[in-house]
């Protein structure tokens, strides 16, 4: 129970630090911040609920990265919900670029939402800091479904256009875009059923109300382990070692870019390069922490670090493909 007490005390400490940070936030923003950064705790917001995937990945990574920040400063994470994460990112967009207000983002609020034209920001309006984690989306069917492999499934879908129904966490979700991308590249027709969250779409799949579902890798895990559902294909842009039998379509299907759901850290545009470098160093070291790797493994994922430049490229390509696909699929004008 020692660990429990330690966690409790560190939480209490965190609460204490965060209350101080709120107190200091208004003062002490000298122009020379980059020379000696960070001088005070850094605030970071997450656009999704506490306890969700994006939140857990962010909090664990930040805890690991915080140990490597200069001046013994820390990063304080808080959740800011609304409009599928757009409210939080719009706030980051408007912050002063001094390195003390960062945002943790996912493919959803950074890449997909701006395509709908409802957000004040575009995906290239930020200074990428580091990519924390990227998890592929997979196409699953019930274990008693007639299609044993992706090939069999593809044959069926080609013969029966608009028959195959698949569920996702919602319209315009990365999972939806991933499947529509496959529809466009393979010139097939499947019917999308939007639910509120992956849990609902998996439930409908289990009940046999829909024929398939596109879900995040870690969301599929409990049910593939108990043999209830089968992974037909990996629609992501990174490999899934847990499902080696399922084809990685990015490699096997020509012209299919693949869609992952990633989580990463951004700073407001024009944040000084020195600041980004300090932050990147901390995350680069933090993501190698064996304790972090162990904890992420428990929730079915692992750190996938990428630095500012590489992360920028990832953002650029995903924004470009998603925009094209969403137009082709009739999701946006």
């Amino acid at each position: 129970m020692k660990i429990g007490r330690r966690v409790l005390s560190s939480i209490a400490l965190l609460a204490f630090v965060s209350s101080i940070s709120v107190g200091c936030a208004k003062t002490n923003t000298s122009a020379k911040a980059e020379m000696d950064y960070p001088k005070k705790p850094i605030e970071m917001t997450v656009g999704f609920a506490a306890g969700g995937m994006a939140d857990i990945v962010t909090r664990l990574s930040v805890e690991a990265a915080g140990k490597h920040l200069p001046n013994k400063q820390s990063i304080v994470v808080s959740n800011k919900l609304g409009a599928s994460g757009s409210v939080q990112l719009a706030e980051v967009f408007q912050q002063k670029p001094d390195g003390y207000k960062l945002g943790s983002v996912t493919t959803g609020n950074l890449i997909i939402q701006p395509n709908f034209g409802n957000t004040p920001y575009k995906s290239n309006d930020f200074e990428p800091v580091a990519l924390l984690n990227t998890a592929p989306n997979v196409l699953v069917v019930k274990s008693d479904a007639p299609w044993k492999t992706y090939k069999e499934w593809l044959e069926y879908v080609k013969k029966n256009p608009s028959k195959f129904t698949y569920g996702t966490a919602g319209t315009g979700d990365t999972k939806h875009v991933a499947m529509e991308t496959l529809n466009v590249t393979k010139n097939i027709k499947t019917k999308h059923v939007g639910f509120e969250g992956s849990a609902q779409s998996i439930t409908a799949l289990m009940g046999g109300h829909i024929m398939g579902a596109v879900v995040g890798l870690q969301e599929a895990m409990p049910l593939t382990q108990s043999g209830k559902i089968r992974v037909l294909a990996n629609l992501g842009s990174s490999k899934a070692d847990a499902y080696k039998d399922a084809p990685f379509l990015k490699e096997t299907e020509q012209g299919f870019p693949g869609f992952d759901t990633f989580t990463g850290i951004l700073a407001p545009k024009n944040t000084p390069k020195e600041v980004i470098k300090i932050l990147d160093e901390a995350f680069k070291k933090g993501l190698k922490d064996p304790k972090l790797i162990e904890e992420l493994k428990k929730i079915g994922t692992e750190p996938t670090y990428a630095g500012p430049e590489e992360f920028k490229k990832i953002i650029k390509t995903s924004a470009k493909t998603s925009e094209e696909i969403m137009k082709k699929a009739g999701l946006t004008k």
Partner: protein
Amino acid sequence: MNSLIQLLNGFETALTWWNLLYCLIGVSIGMLVGVMPGLGPTAGTAILLPITFGLEPVSAIIMLSGIFYGAMYGGTVTSVLINTPGEAASVITCIDGHQMAKQGRAGTALGIAAIGSFIGGTFAIIGLAFIGPPLANFALKFGPPEFFALMLLGLMMLLGLMGQSLLKGLIAAVIGLILSMVGMDPVSGTVRFSFHQLELMNGFDFVIIAMGLFGVSEILMGAENRSDSEKIPKIKGLLPKKDEWGPALKSIARGTGIGFFLGLIPGANAVIASLVSYSAEKKFAKNPSRFGKGAIEGVAGPETANNAYSGAALIPLFTLGLPSSPTVAVLLGAFIMHGLTPGPALFQDNANFVWAVIASMFIGNLLLLVMNLPLAGVWAKIALIPYKLLFPLILILSMVGAYSVNNSLWDVGTMIVFGVLGYFLKKLDFPLAPIVLTFVLGKSIESSFLQSLTISQDGFFIFFTRPISSVLIMITLLIIILSIFSGIKKKRSYLANDVEI
């Protein structure tokens, strides 16, 4: 027999000092988030989830599930005392519970709610332990068409809550339906009524609307009647009168059944359970006119139902690995994080763990009963605090609560706007319960309707070709026809006496 022995083994684990302590912490936090307006079990479990990283899996799950069912006990308190539901499932309790408080019977209302919650919760856990697995597979038969039919039936039940004027009730119901349409439609992705306001893109939050319409408007009304003319009579004890025991216990029994059944279905929510139970009580009562004026059955039934619901909602999680509500989804996350895979294999691979958690729920419910019966008297005293002290306090708590939902000031403003709206609606004698209930039902009705049509190969017939949905729709139609019939027979405004036949 085998299960019984395993359950006893489970008690052995659950009764260790540490696990007892975590169970106590869990249910206490659950009570607290239930009482606090704005904070619900979902937030409670989500916030505490990271703390459990360092705990043993058994202790972690014992604590987190304690928060889940403990919140159902706590939600009643504010409904009864200040006419503000602490969480969604307690909206119905406001109707008769607050009336009871006005008659000085807040203690009784809270007392019977605690007893009902205990019985409902305990039976649901027995169900989880012994008959859960086969039932869970049946519940999976509920797909979008069945949900649509179920929600439609729920909407019909609302007629029973319309109050004095049917017209005003229907207007209120339509307001709720319109509010539910604000934001992004999950099926087509179209954003409606958002006026390019980012905060409106996902629609209104139930908690904010409920706190505004019920809580803030109540404060405004109270500020107006500053004379304290509504002097609260003395508290008359915690237990019901002798002649109330019979009907109350019967309502508890019915509430248990209704809540348990609805809890099995992944995706149905606790609101439906308490709504259906309230309608059932009104139907079974010898004198339905007492409802809305402090009928004890109107508290006992729904409060039992939402607890039975929360126990039964764990069945799909344990047996199939499917979370049936946002709070249960956080619990699922906790299972996975601690290296446990919910599903059929859980009972075999981790039998000790499962039975310890189940045993802890018996203990937790008992703890909650022991905590709540004496506490009911303490809580009830809150109703005696002078308004000029009580109301500013509630207002501050509500604002903090509203802010905490999304950490945003927008929500605080929204709550106040709904408070002012609720004030005028109350002045004009509009019933408020239909607004929030249609708001909850509206979203699911719309999305399940559109989902059904996408799935369907032959259009609207999907609702009639599937047995469960067609039966539910038939029942709904039957209720409408019978109400019209009986209305004409009584030569009164035909819908005014709602579903009573």
